């Protein structure tokens, strides 16, 4: 960490050149690597229980004990504290600390508030000109987005329950897919994988500071 922030978000530095990088924008912002994009990887924000169900052989970063103490515990739910440097843009359609899945970024920002995703659980939508599939798991507040165009064909998904498990099923071919990973496991498209769409689960106030003009799912 560089000790610096852009819109309350982390600014990293690399030890090799001391260039500064914006975490939120995934880009170098000062120094030799200014303007250089960082390749983002499809991380999932979820719970250990949810993760190990999908990946029983997973490894994990060492922890010294089983404590869940987090220096930000009080901060996560405190709507009166919009970051260290405060918010620039006030948009009161949602509470400051409402979590949103932010997609599209500079290509066409669109926020999917968790409160909107909660009732839908699966959303077939469009972001920045691409067809998007968003799945939401309430108990772990997991929100993941995929690109639902496969080999030039747009797929439309529903969540169904089968054998006490949840599956995605596309209306076009009735193929069954694993919601967490976007992998097709049964049907005409078995073996296919949906590409993850770059997204971040962030606070509403943080998203609107970067994208005051953002589209918002569920709000016209």
């Amino acid at each position, binding site marked *: *960490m*560089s*000790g*610096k*922030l*852009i*819109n309350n978000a*982390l*600014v*990293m*530095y690399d030890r090799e050149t001391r260039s*500064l990088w*914006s*975490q939120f*924008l995934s*880009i170098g*912002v*000062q120094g030799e690597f200014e*303007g250089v*994009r960082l390749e983002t*990887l*499809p*991380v*999932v*924000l*979820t*719970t*250990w*229980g949810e*993760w*190990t169900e*999908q*990946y*029983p*052989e*997973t*490894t*994990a*970063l*060492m*922890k*010294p*004990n*089983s*404590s*869940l*103490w*987090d*220096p*930000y515990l009080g901060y996560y739910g405190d709507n009166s504290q919009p970051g*260290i*440097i405060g918010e620039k843009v006030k948009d009161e359609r949602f509470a400051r600390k409402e979590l949103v899945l932010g997609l599209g*970024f*500079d*290509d066409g920002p669109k926020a999917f508030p968790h409160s909107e995703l909660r009732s839908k659980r699966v959303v077939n939508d469009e972001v920045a000109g691409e067809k998007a599939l968003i799945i939401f798991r309430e108990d772990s507040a997991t929100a993941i987005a995929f690109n639902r165009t496969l080999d030039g064909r747009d797929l439309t998904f529903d969540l169904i329950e089968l054998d006490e498990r949840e599956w995605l099923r596309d209306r076009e071919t009735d193929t069954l897919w694993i919601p967490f*990973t976007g992998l097709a496991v049964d049907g005409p498209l078995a073996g296919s994988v949906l590409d993850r769409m770059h997204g971040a689960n962030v606070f509403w106030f943080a998203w609107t500071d970067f994208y005051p003009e953002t589209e918002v799912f569920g709000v016209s």
Partner: protein
Amino acid sequence: MLSRLIPFAFVAFIVAAVVVLVVNFDNLSRPKLEITVSSEDEPSGGANAVSQTREFELVTVLAFDTIRSIDEPIIYEREKANTVYLDEELILGLEIDGEARAYSVPLLSGREIVNDTLAGIPIAITW
């Protein structure tokens, strides 16, 4: 009589100067960065390339490395991890080429960055 006003004028001038400095100090320590973000990878500026330049403030709140990143992290196998990870614990999970790894969010909150290697690929987990 005029000579009595001079000290007041002098003090007023000093006060005004201090006020101007204090008000602008904030701006002095917050340089503005121009960041050009291009629409996906069109390095040669193809027909569909869209780029916009936006301005952001860079705010310094701490010195470099006040929070030290985790480098060369110790990694637990599932069985060992189960003794310290709780089901309801928030994690950042990543799977590359069949290798899956979880990073505890409470732990990340205190360290911010983990420099790791997964499936042979050098990665930085940032929170």
